[in-house]
């Protein structure tokens, strides 16, 4: 090999730097290739970004809808689903996950799709019936079989020595409903006395030995680890536990009053329009309100929101006196700001001075 001269060295350097410059280009080309084409001959794919406990529900529903779509439209359709904590899922969509529809645990996360992502219009919730919630749920108690502590209502949960399991409402969207149910109960009981409601909720959370970051974690803590006397949970999770997972070990207690939990659904307009999937996405969500959609929801322990079908499954879901989030809190935005934002009521419960 001849001794390297400056010329040949700089030549090789130029060649190398060309490779370096090419690399990002290659990466970009790869990314570009992997983007789905919008041509109409290809089968349509929908991505439904949802929250954790709906996995089995949408497994069933997607199969049913694909069958329905292919029978009525004659075109191929495939549906992908993604599950995770509601807030995390909303952030993924805001950050660019190309969801055609979002089916989350609370309207606040949907509002953020509008506010932070500009992906859906402000009035998204009025586009579908029943506040865009095809199925609803409520907040109930799960106790050990035979209810050894004799817990009947919210008041019993704040008694000293009762261990209450509920996830952290700051990390779990679903658990915000638990908190709001307790607050709403106390507020209505005391005739609208905010200070009394605050004291009630504070003593409730003083009885919480473990704040799991999500609902399934709380279920594990309660059911598997044997921590706590009562778990506050969504009715669908409670039914899943008492009827399927932990038969004969747990039972459900319905409190005298609870909140109507409305997990909403929406088409993510910006993604659906860009990908040309709007028609399928809208049909998909509308089908949730059909007889088949409502039956599948009921089978997975969600209360059908369409009147005709909620009557049909009434035996499965005991009547509960329900208040809505809007009645008590004036909407998610207010509830979030007052209770869950930094230095909100929930944080105050846990600051040393309040204890």
């Amino acid at each position, binding site marked *: 090999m001849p*001794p*390297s001269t400056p010329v040949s060295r700089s030549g*090789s350097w130029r060649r190398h730097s060309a490779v370096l410059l090419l690399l990002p280009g290659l990466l970009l080309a790869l990314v570009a290739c992997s983007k789905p084409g919008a041509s109409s001959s290809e089968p349509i794919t929908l991505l439904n970004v949802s929250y954790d406990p709906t996995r089995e529900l949408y497994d069933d529903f997607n199969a049913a809808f694909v069958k329905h779509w292919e029978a009525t439209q004659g075109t191929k359709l495939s549906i992908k689903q993604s599950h995770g904590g509601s*807030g995390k899922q909303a952030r993924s969509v805001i950050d660019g996950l190309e969801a055609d529809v979002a089916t989350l645990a609370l309207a606040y996360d949907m509002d953020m799709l509008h506010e932070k992502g500009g992906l859906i219009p402000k009035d998204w919730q009025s586009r579908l019936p029943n506040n865009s919630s095809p199925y609803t749920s409520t907040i109930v108690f799960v106790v050990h079989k035979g209810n050894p502590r004799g817990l009947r209502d919210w008041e019993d949960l704040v008694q000293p020595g009762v261990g209450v399991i509920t996830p952290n409402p700051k990390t779990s969207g679903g658990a915000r409903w638990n908190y709001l149910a307790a607050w709403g109960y106390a507020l209505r009981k005391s005739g609208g006395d905010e200070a009394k409601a605050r004291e009630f909720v504070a003593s409730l959370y003083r009885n919480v030995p473990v704040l799991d*970051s999500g609902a399934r974690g709380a279920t594990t803590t309660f059911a598997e680890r*044997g*921590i706590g006397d009562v778990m506050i949970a969504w009715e669908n999770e409670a039914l899943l536990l008492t009827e399927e997972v932990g038969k004969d070990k747990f039972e459900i207690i319905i409190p005298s009053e609870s909140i109507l939990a409305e997990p909403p659904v929406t088409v993510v307009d910006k993604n659906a329009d860009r990908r040309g999937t709007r028609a399928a996405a809208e049909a998909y969500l509308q089908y949730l309100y059909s007889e088949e959609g409502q039956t599948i929801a009921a089978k997975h322990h969600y209360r059908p929101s369409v009147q005709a079908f909620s009557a049909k499954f009434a035996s499965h879901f005991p009547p509960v006196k329900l208040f809505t989030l809007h009645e008590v809190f004036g909407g998610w935005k207010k509830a979030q700001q007052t209770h869950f*934002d*930094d230095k909100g009521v929930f944080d105050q419960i846990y600051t040393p001075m309040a204890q």
Partner: protein
Amino acid sequence: MAQRARRRILPGFGLSLGLSWFYLGLLVLLPLSGLFLKTFTLTWEHFWETVASPRAVAAYQLTFGASLVAALANAVFGLLVAWVLVRYRFPGKSLVDALVDLPFALPTAVAGLTLTSLYARNGWFGQYLEAAGIQVAYSWLGIVVALTFIGLPFVVRTVQPVLEDIDADVEEAAATLGATPWQTFAKVIFPSILPALLSGFTLALARAIGEYGSVVFISGNMPMRTEIVPLLIVTKLEQYDYAGATAIAVVMLTASFALLLAINLLQRWTQRRFEVRPG
């Protein structure tokens, strides 16, 4: 310049350095600078209020404290494991050797769930520990247990090869010169493995500071008491408070970097101090 280039056996310094910079830039510097840029959206007062709130301070103390304890435990017991693996032969040795890496392979959430089920009140260990008045799961101790578990391989894997390189005749020479076994360890063996031990300690510490998946299951996540910094960051994100989350992340990152840098300097110093200069 040209001379130095000729002395190198393998060509391609320019290319490999360029690629290294590109790789590090893409994977480390780019995301981190994004992180720092995001915090600039906060005013100074807001930034300070976020990072110096009592809850954040409690979380820093917990995260750095528990990580230090866990890394120290790993330094002691990791050294022991490495010693046993290098110096002794026993049945099942290769099995033990393989076991050491398991915490790397296991998804951290699984580790967290497993440890919690062992140490919870109704778990195998937990029932006896709680009877003795020691609460591990859902307490500070549980966090240390999880962090020790995930950091175990680092010390073992950094010390092991160095120990293997120390020939037994070094110890024999020390013995013939009249050193007691303790002197042999303290003055001959320990100095030569100290740099490796320190880097293992550092890696375990860094890993523990950033750990989230396993800890959230065992810690109980109570604000002010068992809430780690990564959880606090997730909490902020859950409120769509991106800037607040990055502010705390920046504080943690800066503190970690300072800590790692200090340990690296210490490691250099020990290396120089104990280096045996060839005659």
